[in-house]
């Protein structure tokens, strides 16, 4: 969606600072200035949080926040890749439920956990990821091969996949998952939940791939101007296929983490997440028009949203007013951070 009407010319990112002289070894910068737009808002929320409750800055509470956001953060990462390439994938939220759902269905014993129990539990993780690959490939065939509109395809896919999960589960929750399915969602490595490590690591990989590889830059090029990218020799179809598959696999992985943490797969797992996912990415500076935004920015986006949630929870805001407050804070945070960063947006 283009919000290009207002003062195009003034909307560009401010140019980088002038080059420093001298040679430096190749190094990786995780964030550039324009990615830090949300930092003031995050700091602001943190300060308010600490005022609201001394628990806020507790190590435990901070870990909680990171852990609770880790699964959806993978969806945000996935969507960021797709958005940068100028597409969108709505079906991610249903892959997030369906992938572990199918794994549970096939591996959980019939009877109590109402699975089919036709496969041994060790297959559950490979199956989860495989479902991710298949969904991504199906999207890619319809969008890249047949040239169908990506929004429509993935919307249809979203409904189909969500429906499939309801179908195979009869709307019920799968529990009694095989232990291999639970591992990543529950393990603790060096005092931090494995899912937090995994999430941070994947974001770091995302930052490097998007900023420092030809593949990553090809995504920006395609999102910025697919014709020009093609003219520059980028294999647009192949890159798009890969990114759609990778995104679905990330979604499947995210779903696996959540299933592990909740020791179950609910028929509604992931429902409605796509909204938050888009919000986080866009708030974090990723453009719905493609070609713009960074993985680091997207991370600050989802972090901000979860910090706000946490602070509201700690504040024991009356249940009916949480929604309004949540929205108001998001709006204010955005307005402030965009105003302080001094530029109109697109």
């Amino acid at each position, binding site marked *: 969606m283009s919000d290009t009407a207002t003062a195009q010319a003034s909307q560009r990112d401010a140019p980088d600072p002038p080059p420093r002289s001298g040679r430096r070894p190749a190094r990786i910068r995780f964030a550039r200035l324009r990615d830090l737009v949300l930092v003031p808002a995050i700091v602001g929320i943190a300060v308010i949080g600490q005022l609201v*409750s*001394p*628990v806020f800055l*507790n190590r*435990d*509470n901070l870990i*909680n926040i990171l*852990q*609770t956001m880790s*699964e959806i953060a993978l969806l945000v990462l996935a969507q960021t890749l797709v958005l940068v390439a100028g597409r969108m994938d709505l079906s991610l939220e249903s892959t997030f439920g369906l992938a572990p759902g199918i794994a549970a269905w096939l591996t959980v014993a019939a009877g109590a956990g109402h699975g089919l129990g036709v496969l041994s539990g060790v297959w559950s993780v490979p199956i989860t990821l495989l479902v991710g690959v298949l969904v991504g490939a199906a999207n890619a065939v319809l969008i890249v091969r047949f040239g169908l509109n990506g929004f429509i395809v993935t919307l249809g896919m979203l409904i189909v996949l969500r429906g499939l999960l*309801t179908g195979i589960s*009869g*709307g*019920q*929750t*799968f*529990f*009694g998952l095989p232990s291999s399915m639970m591992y990543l969602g*529950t393990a603790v490595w060096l005092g931090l939940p494995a899912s937090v490590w995994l999430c941070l690591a994947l974001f770091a990989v995302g930052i490097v791939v998007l900023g420092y590889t030809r593949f990553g830059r090809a995504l920006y090029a395609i999102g910025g101007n697919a014709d020009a990218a093609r003219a520059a020799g980028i294999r647009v179809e192949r890159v798009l296929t890969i990114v759609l598959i990778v995104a679905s696999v990330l979604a499947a992985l995210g779903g696996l983490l*959540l299933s592990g*943490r*909740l*020791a*179950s797969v*609910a*028929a*509604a797992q992931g429902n*409605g997440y796509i909204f938050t996912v888009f919000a986080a990415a866009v708030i974090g500076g990723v453009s719905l028009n493609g070609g713009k935004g960074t993985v680091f920015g997207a991370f600050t986006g989802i972090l901000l949203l979860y910090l706000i*949630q*946490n602070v509201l*929870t*700690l504040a*024991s805001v*009356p*249940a*009916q007013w*949480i*929604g309004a407050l949540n929205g108001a804070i998001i709006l204010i945070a955005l307005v402030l951070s965009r105003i302080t960063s001094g530029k109109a947006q697109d």
Partner: protein
Amino acid sequence: ACGDSGGAGASADGKPLVGVDYPRSDTDFWNSYIKYTPQFAGELGIDLKTTNSQNDVAKLTANVQTFISQGVKGVAMAPQDTAAVAPTLQQLEAKKIPVVTVDTRPDTGNVFMVVRADNRAYGEKACQFLGAKLNGAGKVVMLQGGLDSINGRDRTEAFNDCMKKNYPNITVFGEATNWDGAVASQKLQTRLTEHPDIKGVYMQSSFALAGTKQLLKQRGLLVPPADPKHVFVVSNDGIPQELKDIAAGEIDATVSQPADLYAKYALSYVKDAIDGKTFQPGPTDHDSTIIQVRPGLLEDQLQAPLVTADGATYGGVPSVKSDDKSLWGNNLS
């Protein structure tokens, strides 16, 4: 409360700190519960921390983490996904924080007490009432809740089972509505067009109340029970509007799901747990029975009476009159 031992969880005045998670805030039933909770906390001398998990078990889990960080001594929750709370319950158990679940019973894991009413009984009561009113023959529509809700499923299964067994000549059209009034109205409208001779409606929740009435009115079917065109409507929850409508003859019955007692006994069991009390299966002092649903899991099954205009007995199910002062829907301030 970070890092401090001992004193945590009890405020200066010595009141225990209890966390209550509300499952959602956008429905009449749960909002009554939300209103009752602080009221009973006051009466019981409890300090409250409250959260809202907005029908999302992942949020519930996060909220419970927050409770733990804040040092609560006990937790009351109403997990709408009864399987996925298991790890959360384990964590609370490990921290020795007693839990009372309201409205739902966890599929696995231990809690101190389950406070709920028998949702299967709701379905059965509705079935018996409609069966009796229709004299065992005709067509009824069941506006179900969400497929992913244990309560919804219990109500659906019990209603279907009871109909099959007792009223085989009644045809039931079951419609999933996802607890959404607009969807319910849309499906009912389609069925009424297809089968203008539908004689009964069972709504599994008060969500569908206004839309259903409006639809019947539009079709000239919202007429007194004596009229042969009357369609019998049974609702569920017992919010004030339902009681009013029963008295006015616009709908015929509801099952009063005790929002007040849910709040009251959830909190009082949490307090009892903190105080170290224990309970055994058997009748309670408040007209209900504690049953052991599985080893280590007790459930206080509160009364959820069928409410009708006349307070008569239908198919063996006794009912109370809609103006009965014992109904929570008649006592809301």
